């Protein structure tokens, strides 16, 4: 703005002022300043939105850690034993104790984000892509809290902002302890005192197909033997079998036997002794014969020791020093049977009679005669006390000695031995390999070798496959139930080559906190704006979540189970609890038929959307009293516990159960009871903004905390 030498009002003098250029520059600067200030305003909003997302992330993380640590981690009531680990779901990763595997279910409130959608999300450092590339999944939150209520009543609910979050677990999953040892689902629990373990064996015990059950196996049908409280099954199961004699044939004499010599006035071979006859007859005589069989077993295991161990004047509180280490389990079993037998006397003799004592008849079997014994009230009480004292001591002291089942009367963590898989096979001890049963079609399978913290002694045989050694060295079972044995059968394993390298056992190693921590990462992204947010298929599901049976000889109907497909059609009875660890995590929301052609906002039940409760009550975990216009609903596909399992639809009009299991038709992912489509085409990529990260302690051993 130069005006030197000029005087205003004089001729030839020009006025001073801003040039147009100067004004333009000034305006430009002013505009820059204004725009800069304006640009700060959205940042403020963005910061508030980020804070909001962090709030939802924090609440979700709290809930996940709560659920992970406090929900029941019991194994689902599916078949969990087989001669080979790949033949039952529990031998695979469906029961792994990783946070995301435990919680990915409707009951625990998270579900995998459909992979088709997850692949469209960008993130800082391409973290999402890396997770997906490593085989991980993104998850989204269900709108309800993980209240633990029955998921079959899963309500419709309006979407909540928590669903705009996606999250994943980063950090490597750990080599967890084996939750269920598939060869033998130890610990076996039984009440103390009790008779030898026996129970439900519907298919394996069917006389028509007993190819692999020992020829002399004790099998019996229900008949007059109903409502046996000690059978490990319910009373609607029909076929039962003595199991525990697979580990010790002498136990069969406790269950049932006949006298080889005259006894109690009866000629040889004419009278039945043991538990089974007492269960039927229920008299003082039958109870005494049960006592005689139990005493015979005691004499068999500890000859001449009746007075020292079994007819004592005071309870045994510790193992007698004369009992060697590897016989302590035998002593526990002796007392278990004997105490159960002598306690039966209390119902058939008065206290006065028992105070004076009753004589137990002698029993001769296998050229061994049981000792004569006077059973009194004090003997009965001492045996009971000894039985529980030694059973508890044995279970707590020797978790790797499986000679005696664990007492149900007091379950403790020491009942569960530490087992893990050896992830480092060697050329001399490669991975276990074989074929999925029944070998039609032939499907190869592998599994890591197990390792125990200490050598397991008295491993015995399993409840479900009492004819098989562990590992299965018996080629017979592999063709059991089929018409033509596959060739070759399973490789014959030997116990010495079954286990992994003990030096690879790490569960009891010291560790740094960082070695056990994994991280929950939350991103904010409005993925529900995609047009296929509800029609995209579910994320891939681990095959072990598809319920199937352990190897069995034949189905109840439909002929022998000679193909893998038939195993899927005949799974074990499904309890509701099983649905939390099996099937599709989006199970309660899935559409049952293709939704193409259905309009946005469609609410028809024909695609599997919820339908109305008959009583008109608006059940919702949103608690219903805020005027939320939520229809009372339940999802029929959540309820139908047969619809999404097996290879064959239950009815011709039903959809293919495999497609339901896989969620091929999408799901009502915001639980609002209608089909929603967003506005964003699938060609658009969205950027997911990192919201929060939470470190958490990743358990290697299943546990619940309070």
């Amino acid at each position, binding site marked *: 703005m130069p005006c030197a030498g000029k005087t205003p009002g004089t*001729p030839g003098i020009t006025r001073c002022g801003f040039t147009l250029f100067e004004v333009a520059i000034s305006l430009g600067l*002013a505009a820059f300043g204004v725009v800069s200030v304006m640009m700060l305003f959205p940042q403020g909003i963005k910061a508030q939105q980020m804070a909001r997302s962090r709030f939802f992330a924090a609440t979700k993380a709290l809930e996940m850690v709560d659920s992970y640590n406090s929900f029941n981690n019991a194994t689902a009531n599916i078949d969990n034993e087989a001669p080979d680990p790949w033949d039952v779901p529990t031998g695979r990763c469906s029961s792994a104790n990783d946070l995301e595997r435990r919680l990915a279910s409707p009951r625990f409130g998270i579900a995998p984000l459909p992979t088709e959608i997850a692949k469209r999300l960008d993130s800082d450092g391409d973290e999402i892509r890396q997770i997906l590339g490593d085989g991980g999944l993104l998850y989204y939150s269900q709108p309800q*809290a993980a209240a633990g209520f029955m998921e079959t009543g899963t309500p419709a609910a309006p979407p909540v902002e928590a669903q705009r979050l996606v999250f994943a677990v980063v950090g490597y999953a750990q080599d967890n302890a084996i939750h269920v040892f598939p060869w033998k689902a130890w610990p076996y629990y039984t009440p103390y005192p009790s008779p030898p373990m026996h129970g439900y064996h519907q298919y394996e015990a069917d006389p028509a197909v007993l190819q692999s059950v020992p020829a002399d196996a004790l099998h019996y049908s229900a008949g007059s033997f109903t409502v046996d409280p000690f059978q490990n099954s319910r009373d609607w199961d029909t076929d039962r079998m003595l199991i525990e004699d697979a580990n010790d044939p002498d136990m069969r004499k406790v269950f049932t036997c006949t006298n080889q010599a005259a006894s109690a006035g009866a000629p040889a071979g004419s009278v039945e002794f043991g538990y089974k006859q007492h269960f039927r007859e229920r008299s003082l005589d039958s109870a005494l014969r049960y006592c005689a069989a139990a005493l015979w077993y005691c004499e068999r295991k500890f000859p001449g020791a009746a007075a020292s161990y079994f007819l004592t004047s005071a309870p045994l509180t510790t193992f007698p020093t004369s009992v060697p280490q590897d016989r302590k389990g035998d002593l526990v079993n002796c007392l278990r049977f004997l105490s159960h037998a002598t*306690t039966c006397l209390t119902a058939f003799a008065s206290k006065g009679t028992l105070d004076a004592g009753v004589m137990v008849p002698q029993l001769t079997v296998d050229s061994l005669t049981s000792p004569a014994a006077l059973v009194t009230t004090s003997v009965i009480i001492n045996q009971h006390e000894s039985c529980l004292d030694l059973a508890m001591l044995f279970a707590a002291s020797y978790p790797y000695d499986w000679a005696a089942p664990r007492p149900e009367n007091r379950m403790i963590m020491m009942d569960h031995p530490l087992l893990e898989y050896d992830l480092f096979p060697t050329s001399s001890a490669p991975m276990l390999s074989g074929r999925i049963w029944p070998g039609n079609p032939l499907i190869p399978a592998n599994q890591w070798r197990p390792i125990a913290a200490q050598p397991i002694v008295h491993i015995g045989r399993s409840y479900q496959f009492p004819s098989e050694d562990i590992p299965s060295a018996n080629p017979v079972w592999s063709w059991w139930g089929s018409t033509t044995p596959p060739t070759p059968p399973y490789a014959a394993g030997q116990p010495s080559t079954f286990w992994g390298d003990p030096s690879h056992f790490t569960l009891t190693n010291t560790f740094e906190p960082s070695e056990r921590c994994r991280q929950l990462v939350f991103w904010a992204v409005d993925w529900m704006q995609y047009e296929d947010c509800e029609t995209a298929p579910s994320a891939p599901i681990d095959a072990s979540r598809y319920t199937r049976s352990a190897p069995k000889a034949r189905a109840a109907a439909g002929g022998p189970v000679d193909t893998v497909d038939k195993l899927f059609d005949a799974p074990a009875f499904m309890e509701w609890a099983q649905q939390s660890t099996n099937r599709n995590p989006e199970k309660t929301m899935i559409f049952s038929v293709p939704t193409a052609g259905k309009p946005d906002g469609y609410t028809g039940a024909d695609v599997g959307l919820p339908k109305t409760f008959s009583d008109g*009550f608006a*059940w919702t*975990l949103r608690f219903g009293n805020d*005027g939320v216009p939520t229809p009372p609903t339940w999802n029929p596909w959540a309820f139908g516990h047969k619809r999404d399992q097996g290879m064959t639809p239950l009815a011709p009009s039903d959809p293919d159960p495999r497609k339901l299991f896989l969620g091929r038709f999408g799901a009502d992912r915001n639980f609002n009871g209608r089909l929603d489509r967003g506005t964003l085409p699938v060609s658009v990529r969205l950027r997911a903004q990192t919201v929060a990260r939470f470190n958490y302690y990743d358990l290697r051993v299943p546990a619940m905390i309070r």
Partner: protein
Amino acid sequence: MRILRTSGFTLIEMLIAIALGVVIITTCAAGFRVASQSISVANRLALENTLMRSGYFAAVEEADYWESFDDPNATPAPATSLRGSASLTYHGVATARGMAFTPLTQMGFTCAAPTNSEADRGWDSAYQWPASDPRGWYHGQIPEFMHNIDGKFGFYEVFTHLSSAPNLSSTALVQSANLVAYGVASPLHTWLPNQLEGMKNALGYYGLYDYFPANTFFGYYGHGDWGDQSLSHEWSNPDSPNTASPNGSLFKLSGFSQGYDYSTVNGRNNNTNSVSFPIVPASGFTEFRTDTLAVQDLVSRNHSSWVTNTYQAAGTSAGVSGFLGNALVRTPLMTSRPAYWPELRVQVARYANQSRFATLCRISWRSPLTGATAEAAFTVLSTTLRGARQQRRQGGGWATWTNSISDPILRTTDATLDSP
């Protein structure tokens, strides 16, 4: 000749100036409008976030301190809330029963001088329940049915019983013709049955589950359909009477409802698999206004269960509806806030379900931006009931717990709700 030129803007200058002025004013106006809107939105978001955080902290605080269920600083002293007791009659037997925050001294269920023997009675809060103590083992016949007693395996009442001298002379219960009257027994193990019965009566069902070890069998011999000679009815009968909804099922401690094959003693998992055992507070912020209930009714509801885990009952008032109406405390925060401030509520329910002690929190607020109700619902790890009771002094107020370098264990000299 001098030419005088008048000073002034030319028309073109004026036009340009006016145009520039318009641009500036428009820009400024737009800027101010955007700024105003942004600030408004940001402020409202900030306010909403503050509400959410406040609700969150209130929920977590509640999870830790249980003040919606028992405010130790309430005036008058909280004797009329969950610290009360009443007599309930079941199967003809009237028993004094308390609730979750009833002092154990009030129920006469404390053990001032424990001897660690079967003869001890009352609760010893210092007892650690070692797994090696035979007192804590279940000495009964685990698979025994309550409704199907026939004695074929003998009477385990000779080993364990609520009474120290049960009379086992009844033959009315038996199905076998061969049974004989045993007479009066002298069971060695009477401590556990009395602990179970005493705690159930003292604190209600939730308290019972909270206080006992996870491996407990809930049941004992005594108080049965046949007097001394069967399992206790309240503990083992799955078909206990269902009172009118929404009060849940009174005296239904055994969670199953599927017939006699479950009428055995059960562990916590079985008992809580189908039903939930909530703490029903005496609160004016429950849907059913449980603060208006007579003490006896309130005690009854704390000895009840609600079906939450079957789809049939999900929508019934005897199920989830009744459960939430009784158990969910919907505490409004900032009740004295300015009228233009949005509403904020924190809702908490505590219950035992599927072997888990759930603390269900829900924060709901009215959005200042949209006016719609928004919410966040989650469960959270929280203080146990036992911990909460030991936070409180018997006469009201908070107990003081201290530790030191030389004694790192927290200790209190105050008499808590568990103290003798």
